[in-house]
């Protein structure tokens, strides 16, 4: 029966993705159902084939009836229609057609393998059993305390390792949770469980407030803010003994109880109960953390961690993400603090000192090379060793352990030497920050099956597409190949009116006017210091102008910051290439796609809902298709740092385009490119423009630019001195004068890239 239910669930999952009800897909539903049946082992072997048959039959009917609704729910159709990159993908490769089924069990199995879940569970179970069977109340109580510390440690891991916000104040959040519990229970008369939940939530809110400012700061200042907060709490406990109970602490009076009259639940948590509760909570928190790390959320974290600037340029609200991680980390600590105080029946201020905070931080450092085992290993070393030393030296009256902090300090040094001295941490980060390191074969297979490039589509491989002699392609030929575009003369997509920016007495931009119609590739040239980059920064919102307006599709953008403008449809690339060491090439593009795409919400990503899986698969397919466009599909699984600098720039371009902007600002996209890469760049830019993207390209390589662009604008000392088609520009006497003083501008017509300025 259970097996049948499981199988039906799989069918339901399949429905969320079944797109056109292909026989192959439905056959796989049946096969998967059969696998489940077999795996559950409850059904007789002979029933398997029949079960599969029956399921296939059911699925056939359900799929036909429910598919459109499922598609609409996934929001895929809608999104692809709105997104130029998506239109491009669909045109060349047809609809992204999810081929594999949402294989939740497969993903689970992969996770169990890569994270060595089974040894962890066995070890943990053995330890738990040993404590429960042989340990006295004191040992059980200590184990419960350690388990609750683990819970706080999971939160600290989220802050410190995942989002690069080193927190030196985690013990302070434990304290907030514990003291709030005392207030809630002793003064407001709440029950233990309710008090724990409320304290956890309130502590999370405190964390959000602390993180509110800290989220905007560089990592070192996050550490300073949390360090100061830790001491604020410690000093506050000392300074307000009337409230905090001083060094004696506060008794909580009675154990934690859970009474739900309606359900007949009446639990009283002893030390054993707390140990089991803590174990369950830690397991839950760890699974949620790993699930998030292996999802789009984890990808976003990696981007925020390694280049906040890139994450912002792609439209992610970095500060908001950071604040919510503070919320989660503090919430876990608050819950842990509340429960652990209730487990011992007293709120003890010595449990929340700066030494405890530091030892938790060290536990994260020590644990970081061990993946999901990390918190266990870290806590065992960082808290266990000082306890052992304390036990050993207290006989001699020395007390060198826990309270004193010497051992913790030495451990920190040892951990630093081990973790940061070598490149172990780096290697670990790369290995673990990936969402799904395993099974590239299966996923690739799925993606490849999505669409073979149609006849006449652009060549795909970078090496085969490479024209050994691109200079032989005359500009005229390239122009003739270009497909029809939306008619120019319509309302401009991007309009700049009287934009002005001064730096001191220098007019970097002086009443710049610019109009770029939809689908136009517009070049922006000028000698160094003429204001090109300043213009891009004012357009993208990273630099506030002193005057003037930016209008996109009739909408005034002047009040919007960078994130707002990305949302409105302006995305830019950087002059200097930024790649994220923690993500593969394909994941870079997925990062661009994931913003605002279905299934990228936290909750969905954590629970790995069918909608999320569908979104992830569609993103993957679209990413691979986009990479194919620019000849990078062979490197989809590669480390982007292994690419040539030219290909890294291509990757950047594709990543920026993947977010579905209507205007793309490219800052020297051709810098450092080889001839074959220039060819790929040209094709990619053309393709994007053909599908309705408007491009503004700053470039020094005038030969390349005049071949690619429809029109170009020349800036000089912050002023527009000419706008027009490349031929007109080349003939313009003002432009010649700006570049060459007097004489002829030869670089446009002569082959061979010429960098000016």
């Amino acid at each position, binding site marked *: 029966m259970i097996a049948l239910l499981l199988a039906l669930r799989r069918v339901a999952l399949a429905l969320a993705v079944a797109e056109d009800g292909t026989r192959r897909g439905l056959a796989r539903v049946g096969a998967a159902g059969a696998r489940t049946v077999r795996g559950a082992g409850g059904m007789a072997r002979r029933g398997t084939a029949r079960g599969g048959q029956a399921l296939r039959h059911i699925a056939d009917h359900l799929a036909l009836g429910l598919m459109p609704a499922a598609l609409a729910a996934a929001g895929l159709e809608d999104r692809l229609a709105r997104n130029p990159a998506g239109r491009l993908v669909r045109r060349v490769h047809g609809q992204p057609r999810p081929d594999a089924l949402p294989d939740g069990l497969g993903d689970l199995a992969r996770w169990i393998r890569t994270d060595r879940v089974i040894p962890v569970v066995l070890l943990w179970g053995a330890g738990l059993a040993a404590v429960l069977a042989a340990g006295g109340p004191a040992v059980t109580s200590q184990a419960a305390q350690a388990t609750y510390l683990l819970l706080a440690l999971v939160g600290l891991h989220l802050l410190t390792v995942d989002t690069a916000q*080193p927190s030196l104040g985690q013990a302070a959040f434990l304290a907030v949770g514990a003291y709030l519990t005392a207030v809630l229970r002793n003064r407001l008369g709440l029950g233990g469980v309710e008090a724990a939940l409320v304290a956890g939530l309130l502590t999370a809110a405190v964390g959000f407030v602390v993180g509110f400012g800290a989220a*905007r700061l560089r990592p070192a*200042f996050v550490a300073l803010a949390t360090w*100061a907060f830790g001491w604020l709490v410690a000093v506050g406990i000392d300074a*307000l003994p009337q409230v905090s109970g001083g060094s004696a602490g506060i008794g909580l009076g009675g154990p934690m109880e859970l009474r739900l009259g309606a359900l007949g639940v009446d639990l009283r948590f002893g030390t054993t109960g707390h140990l089991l509760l803590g174990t369950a909570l830690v397991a839950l928190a760890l699974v949620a953390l790993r699930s998030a790390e292996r999802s789009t959320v984890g990808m976003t974290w990696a981007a925020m961690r390694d280049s906040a600037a890139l994450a912002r340029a792609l439209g992610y609200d970095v500060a908001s993400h950071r604040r919510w991680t503070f919320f989660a980390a503090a919430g876990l600590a608050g819950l842990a603090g509340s429960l652990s105080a209730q487990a011992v029946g007293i709120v003890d201020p010595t449990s929340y000192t700066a030494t405890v905070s530091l030892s938790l931080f060290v536990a994260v450092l020590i644990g970081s090379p061990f993946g999901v085992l990390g918190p266990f290993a870290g806590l065992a070393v960082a808290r266990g060793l000082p306890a052992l030393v304390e036990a050993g030296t207290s006989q001699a009256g020395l007390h060198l352990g826990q309270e*004193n902090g*010497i051992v913790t300090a030495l451990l920190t040094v040892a951990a*630093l030497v081990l973790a940061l001295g070598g490149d172990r941490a780096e290697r670990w980060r790369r290995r673990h920050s990936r969402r799904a390191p395993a099974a590239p074969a299966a996923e690739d297979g799925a993606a490849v099956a999505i669409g073979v490039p149609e006849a006449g589509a652009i060549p795909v491989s970078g090496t085969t597409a490479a024209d050994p002699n691109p200079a032989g392609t005359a500009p005229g030929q390239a122009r003739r190949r270009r497909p029809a575009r939306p008619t120019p003369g319509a309302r401009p997509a991007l309009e700049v009116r009287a934009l002005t920016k001064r730096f001191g007495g220098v007019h970097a931009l002086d009443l710049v006017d610019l109009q770029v119609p939809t689908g136009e590739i517009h070049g922006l040239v000028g000698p160094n210091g003429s204001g090109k980059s300043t213009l891009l920064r004012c357009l993208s919102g990273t630099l506030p102008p002193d005057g003037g307006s930016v209008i996109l599709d009739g909408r005034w953008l002047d009040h919007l910051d960078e994130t707002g403008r990305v949302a409105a449809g302006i995305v830019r690339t950087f*002059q200097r290439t930024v790649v994220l060491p923690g993500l593969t090439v394909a994941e870079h593009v997925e990062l661009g796609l994931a913003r605002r795409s279905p299934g990228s919400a936290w909750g969905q990503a954590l629970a790995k809902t069918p909608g999320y899986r569908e979104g992830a698969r569609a993103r993957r397919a679209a990413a691979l298709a986009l990479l194919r466009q620019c000849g990078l599909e062979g490197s989809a699984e590669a480390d982007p740092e292994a690419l040539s600098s030219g290909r890294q720039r291509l990757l950047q371009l594709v990543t920026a385009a993947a977010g579905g902007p209507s205007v793309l600002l490219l800052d020297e996209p051709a810098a450092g490119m080889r001839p074959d890469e220039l060819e790929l760049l040209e094709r990619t830019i053309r393709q994007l423009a053909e599908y309705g993207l408007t491009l503004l390209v700053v470039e020094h390589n005038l030969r390349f630019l005049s071949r690619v662009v429809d029109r170009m604008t020349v800036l000089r000392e912050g002023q527009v001195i000419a706008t027009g088609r490349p031929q007109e520009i080349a003939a313009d006497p003002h432009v010649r004068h700006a570049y060459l003083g007097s004489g002829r501008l030869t670089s446009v017509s002569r082959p061979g890239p010429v960098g000016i300025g």
Partner: protein
Amino acid sequence: MSWGLVLQVLVSGLAAGAAYGLVGMGYSLIYRMTAVLDFAHGDLVNLGIFAFLLALGGGGAVAQVGLPVGILLLAAGVGVAVAMVGAMLLFRLAVEPFGPARAVGWIAATAAAGLLARGLIGAWFSAESYSVPDVLPLQGLGRNGLVDLPGGGVLELRNLAVLGVALALALGFDLFVARSRPGKAMRAAAEAPDTARLSGIDTERLQLLAWAIAGVLTAVAGLLLAPARPVTLQLGVVLGLKGTAAAVLGRLGSARGAVVAGLCLGVLESVVTSLFVPAFHLGSLNLPQLGPLPGMHDVLALLLLVLALALLPGRLRLAAEAPE
């Protein structure tokens, strides 16, 4: 409220604030010269104070009055020297191996160094708290070092002396940076390290010098403030954090800003603890009646630091631009 009381509150606040300013100047200098934050800054205060106590009494009881001025100054010199060496070691062992880019490294290493210092000091000095003799023996002047003010206030002469010494040191440091050769080299190295190195300036030695100066300033501040209160290891840490608050509020990197912010912080603390707090009740929360809150000024300073980081990020903010 009489003018005498106002003056009393003001002077005691300025004296404490000047000491915070000294600590903050050191913190700012370290940030400006080496682009790191010192998480063991308060423990340099501890090093200074406890080395002073060690030199005087070997860890045992120390006579509070009647010590010859020469011996006091000698011991103070020992304390300052130990803090200076401690700061230099901190730079060499806990900061340099990582470089400014590996933030987690020096954050953890300096924090651990502070913890280690507290642990070692705590293993030797195991009493709850200590009294520290005054390096500025002014008890002979006035009425036991006090001058009665019209209207009921009392002026502590040592507060004036503390203020004077601290401001003199700050002024001296300012002149050193503005006029002297190494001071100019330091400014150059802070503004443009690479250019400075190309012009033959040994930036590494200047960084070490910056840490040494910070150690000296911090220890002096500790020795100036410690005699007025029972000294624990937490006192040093909190003083370090108040210096940090002064440095952050005074625009991190600016020595003058740190001094001004420190003075303001001191006066604010003094005003809050002496004027407002006795009238401060939490009766409506059904809590026990609160008397004067001696520890509140520490809470206030730390709260200000946390708020400053939250609300005035200014240039501490994450780089919004990709490096271009």
